[in-house]
């Protein structure tokens, strides 16, 4: 029981705080990326770090993502804990070879002799009115790459806790930051930030009995809103926030689905080949005889991310989720 008052904080602020605390706690933690120094990053997540820790700890790099990540690999080989910022989702693609062929594989290639404790922060997803290449949901690429952890917060407290855990991890973590939640606020006590718990635990954000919405990152608030709206239709929805895509918390997810008997996976990423397929498949494999209906998916369409003026038609919103809930074969199961 704490007496210190919590006050509203933004996810951006919690991320900055996590970086600062990690740097203060461990001199091996170094931040590098485009505009992370003097400017504090285009989203201001690294604001103040260069000033506080010096430019050698928070370094503006040349504009070259493969070079940034490759340099970070070398730094990690020497025992540092680099935290790399990729400016936007689509601008992480130039670093793809370094990510897949080295970041993900170095521990394995060296039979454990060389670990790469590095964190790759990627602001991702849409809903911010960004022009093309600024709104991609690129998680499908990362979760199909063994050797990476893939993590994404949906709340202010998790932004802090998961980022600290990512930096503390001895393995590379792709840390996906939902851009459109940067300025979302929660009550959060920055004087007593959450302890660092190991990666890989999902959490039930809302309990319910009718069906489970399995989701993560930017879609968590949407699902919670949909769950509220669903009450009017007589549905009591459970919402599971995965938080970590790799490792995947089969236990929490399956426990929920076994309870509710119905499930929908919700994410912004395209449907085809996206995370939803994996999640639906593994839930079905594990809970087949508990399912009253197939696990459905509500996702972005399988199109290049649309221009700002059309993004609201693309992004899975409350209505699309409720439509899917309606298709969960209520007659058959009831």
């Amino acid at each position, binding site marked *: 029981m704490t007496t210190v008052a919590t006050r509203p904080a933004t996810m951006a602020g919690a991320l900055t705080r996590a970086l600062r605390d990690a740097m203060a706690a461990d001199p091996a933690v170094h931040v590098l990326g*485009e*505009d992370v*120094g*003097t*400017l*504090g990053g*285009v989203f201001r997540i690294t604001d103040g770090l260069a000033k506080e820790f010096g430019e050698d700890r928070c370094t*503006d*790099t*040349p*504009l*070259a*993502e*493969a*070079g940034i990540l490759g340099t970070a690999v070398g730094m990690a080989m020497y025992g540092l804990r680099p935290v790399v910022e990729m400016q936007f989702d*689509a*601008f992480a*693609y*130039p670093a793809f070879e370094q990510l897949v062929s080295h970041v993900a594989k170095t521990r394995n290639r060296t039979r454990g002799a060389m670990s790469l404790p590095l964190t790759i922060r990627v602001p991702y997803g849409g809903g911010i*009115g*960004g*022009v*093309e*290449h*600024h709104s991609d949901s690129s998680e499908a690429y990362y979760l199909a790459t063994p050797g990476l952890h893939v993590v994404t917060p949906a709340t202010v407290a998790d932004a802090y806790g998961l980022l600290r855990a990512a930096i503390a991890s001895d393995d590379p973590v792709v840390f996906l930051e939902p851009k459109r939640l940067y300025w979302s606020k929660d009550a959060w006590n920055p004087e007593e930030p959450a302890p660092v718990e190991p990666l890989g635990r999902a959490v039930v954000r809302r309990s319910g009995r009718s069906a489970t919405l399995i989701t993560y990152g930017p879609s968590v608030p949407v699902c919670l809103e949909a769950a509220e709206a669903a009450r009017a239709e007589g549905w009591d929805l459970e919402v599971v926030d995965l938080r970590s895509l790799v490792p995947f918390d089969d236990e929490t997810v399956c426990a929920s689905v076994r309870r509710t008997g119905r499930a929908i996976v919700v994410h912004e990423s395209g*449907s*085809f080949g996206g995370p939803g397929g994996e999640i639906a498949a593994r839930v079905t494999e594990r809970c087949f005889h508990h399912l009253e209906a197939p696990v459905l998916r509500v996702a972005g*369409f*399988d*199109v*290049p991310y*649309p*221009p*700002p*003026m*059309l993004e609201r*038609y*693309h992004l899975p919103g409350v*209505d*699309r989720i409720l*439509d899917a809930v309606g298709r969960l074969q209520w007659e058959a199961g009831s």
Partner: protein
Amino acid sequence: MTVMEQRGAYRPAPPPAWRPRTDPAPLLPDPEPYRVLGTGAAADADPGLLRTLYARLVTGRRYNAQATALTKQGRLAVYPSSTGQEACEIAAALALEDRDWLFPSYRDTLAVVARGVDPVQALTLLRGDWHTGYDPYEHRVAPLSTPLATQLPHAVGLAHAARLTGDDVVALAMVGDGGTSEGDFHEALNFAAVQRAPVVFLVQNNGFAISVPLAKQTAAPSLAHKAVGYGMPGRLVDGNDAVAVHQVLSDAVRHARAGGGPTLVEAITYRIEAHTNADDATRYRGDEEVAAWRRHDPIDLLERELTARGLLDEEGVRAAREDAETMAADLRARMNQDPELDPMDLFAHVYAEPTPQLLEQRAQLRAELAAEAEGAQR
């Protein structure tokens, strides 16, 4: 003879017979950026060209101001202004023939407009409307490229293809100083030199990549010095001197057209405004630096020359500004009309023929929209 065989082959014979096949000296840029305005050479500049450049630059600057204003009114999602860089943008585009191609980056709207693209269409992307607003084939302008330096290999490939096809086409590819650090810059220039593709690479060195100053981007004597490592000439030009830019670019285009291969041109200029309307430049640079560059303004430089030669009077200045205002008023008026977008177009141009999967998704959206419309009617 294949394209490959036409190159001066570099394949060292065993030492000691070894000798480089290309003399590096002519590839190296001069120590000083090339300038015309304010020098004796200005007297030879064609009056017509001076007048055209002046009028276009004045309009260009007004366009930048208008577009920035439109971001404040929510009419543009974002605008990366090229104020201070108008000479690079416009003089470079004017160095091309109609049949040539331009490969612009996100900051090069002025160059795009200088090619003949409708000023409103040139802003479609930045408005939040569809990604490319113009038909690239109409004025031979590739889509504005946002991922840095990725447009450079496209320019090389297009120029190479034109050459293989026997067409007399040159491609001009634009990139920023920051963009030169990307691997794609390297790969594109190397390809171009090996294939002797008719491409000109123009680096607008405006001193910054967002907040990162050039000194944190490169330790090179100049960006133009990179050329020698590819075996192409590197040229330095004062990017605020429109006549100098026009001459250097015209030379490079001629050289490429004549089969001489690519050139790398670095234009030294300055980004007077913030990176985009969303950026706060005071966080990383001081006022004096900006003020110093304002004293080396591309429009001023032209105006002084024109005035000195008696080619421009107050009336001329007024006329140029009026034309610019007319353009701005038209732009404003047309940008204030809401564009009409059809949500069903999400699925229209993913493939030549939508896949069965997209047809399903299209049907889903259609149903959603119908339900929404119904809900709204009730």
